[in-house]
């Protein structure tokens, strides 16, 4: 799997801590099982040695924590970032959410993370997962070991990985990859080709499962407002009631709209949804439209780029034509 191992990261982190260049490290901490890894802050070598974890389940995108964490002390923070995390990192820099000097980024290579929910479809009550070049062996409590192909247990965001390129790093482990032409819009096109009634039923079925827990908003690195409109009682949309289909539609359209043009397609929203609603398909629809209407744009590709919704040209597409071009069998 990655020839860069946990120990490489730990020794480098210990060096940086010892040299005083950074005063704390944002990494992951082991839990009860192999997959329940929690983002955690390490300040000394001893806790790093004991608890630091890095492997197939360190999928959490840590860039959002930096907004809060950089305010807490003057020192630098060391943070390990997969390629897709660095896009969110750049997008947050574009929006001046923290200053670049307070963060020391080490880019780590990534061959795609594993998704515990997809593993559980194949192997119930599993406790440990070992992955190597020819696949993944999952050892379960009652059904012995289950051999699986890696692509069966990778989340959609990794199967349709858009880029192995680190767009921001102070130091890089392993060599840098490039952007990949992935089929990340296939699913969106499949939905677009449905008839309006089918599309409505599909989304009503998906969104009706929403339990309004706000996990998708709270984990999204593009959603970093100090005070979200959904937490503001007199905004009228704050309604916590999963009362009927309208509330869910309103919440998800507005959530996706607020990150339109800024969403880097990191897939965190779908990773954390307890009801496994494919929320990335909403954000990807906006990305596909923006690329189609206003030219290829990847949020976070470079710091300071002007997001599509705060920019314009005099010959943009008219809204009435925008929808006609949507699908063939309109």
């Amino acid at each position, binding site marked *: 799997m990655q020839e860069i191992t946990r120990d490489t990261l730990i020794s480098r982190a210990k060096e940086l801590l010892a040299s005083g260049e950074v005063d704390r490290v944002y990494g992951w901490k*082991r839990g009860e099982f192999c997959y329940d890894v929690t983002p*955690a802050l390490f300040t000394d070598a001893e806790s790093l040695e004991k608890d630091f974890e890095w492997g197939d389940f360190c999928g959490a995108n840590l860039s959002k924590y930096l907004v809060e964490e950089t305010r807490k002390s003057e020192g630098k923070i060391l943070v390990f970032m997969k390629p897709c995390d660095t896009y969110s990192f750049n997008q947050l820099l574009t929006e001046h959410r923290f200053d670049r000097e307070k963060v020391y980024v080490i880019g780590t290579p990534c061959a795609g993370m594993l998704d515990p929910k997809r593993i559980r479809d194949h192997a119930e009550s599993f406790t440990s997962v070992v992955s190597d070049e020819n696949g993944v062996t999952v050892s379960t409590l009652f059904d012995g070991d289950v051999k699986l192909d890696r692509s069966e247990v990778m989340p959609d965001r990794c199967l349709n990985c858009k880029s192995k390129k680190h767009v921001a790093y102070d130091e890089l482990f392993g060599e840098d990859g490039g952007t990949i032409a992935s089929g990340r819009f296939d699913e969106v096109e499949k939905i677009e080709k449905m008839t309006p009634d089918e599309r409505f039923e599909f989304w009503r079925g998906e969104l009706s499962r929403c339990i*309004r827990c706000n996990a998708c908003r709270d984990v999204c690195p593009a959603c970093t407002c100090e005070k979200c409109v959904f937490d503001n009682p007199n905004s009228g949309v704050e309604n916590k009631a999963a009362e009927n289909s309208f509330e869910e539609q309103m919440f998800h359209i507005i959530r996706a709209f607020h990150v339109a043009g800024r969403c880097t397609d990191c897939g965190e929203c779908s990773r954390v949804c307890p009801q496994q609603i494919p929320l990335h398909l909403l954000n990807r629809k906006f990305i596909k439209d923006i690329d189609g209407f206003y030219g290829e744009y990847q949020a976070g590709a470079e710091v300071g780029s002007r997001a599509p919704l705060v920019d314009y040209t005099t010959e943009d597409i008219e809204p009435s034509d925008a929808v006609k071009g949507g699908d063939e069998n309109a």
Partner: protein
Amino acid sequence: MRKITLDRLDEFFAAVAGKLKLYIPVDTAGGAQFQQWRAGAKMSDALNTTRSAKDFFFPQTENLMEFKTEGKKIEIIDVRRENEDFAIFGVRACDVRSFDVLDRAFLSEPADTYYQNRREHGVIFSLACSKPAETCFCGTFGIDPANPKGDIVCYKTDDAIYMEAKTEKGANLMDSVSDIVAEDEGGDGESAVNAQKEIISERMKKLPLASLSTDKFGGDKTAKFFDDPAWKSLSESCLGCGTCTFVCPTCQCYDIKDFNAGNGIKRFRCWDSCMYSEFTKMSAGQPRLTQLERFRQRFMHKLVYYPANNDGMFSCVGCGRCLSKCPIQMNIVKVMKNLGEGGENNG
């Protein structure tokens, strides 16, 4: 002990659905969920549903009353209606225990009539687990998955489901469908059920969380744990979303809000989460300013405050939903293991 073979299960469901609304766990894209039974619906054999059965008694949103106002006058409209009878099939032992936890909260003086009415009209078919998941720890709270409570206890073996009515409500329902579900004369029911109980208790011992214990917790431990240094490292990466509280079968907190629908004002109740930043915010300030205090409140309530008010019963049933659903994989098991261990050891 009554028996129904698996191939005639649909007939059984149809018979019960003839008497009252029946809900069974059905597989959906988001894991198993309770849905109203319709002919041909296939029961999911997943271990547990994503949303617990709490929703049937304490729904996420519920209209309490309506107001009509003209000028200075107000008219209060009581929208409470007698609920229809309904039955929920396939409730696991942990979720059945969560009803006891909720009962103490809602039915204690002064009783909540919305909840009470639904409780009276609900019949619970509890289903013993056969294959617990690694995230299960119901044993820690004294729940025996092999002998769940509930109105009618069911055991599912390879070819049949054995049912035993435990309460009067359950017995009435079983009698009303007795033509489909015959009494098990052959007697092999007992042995099949006991064999299954053996398997479950064996498996429970092998679970990774089997040794988790609640000895250090309880109603009198407020001072001991309130200022524990471990809270800082436990809560540092908590996002403050409401997932753990909304998938939890025993979370009881709710918010009361008014919705001006134009044609009248509806006062409704909806689930609320102590993890949300607005939970205790008031015009005079906010007693729980940071996420650490909110995080602490949630687990202190489950392990200390609730037992203090309910003679020792914990407000957690070990169902494991928060273990698998938390975006950053922080949960009550890690809290129980790390609290009181001299903070620095946050392993």
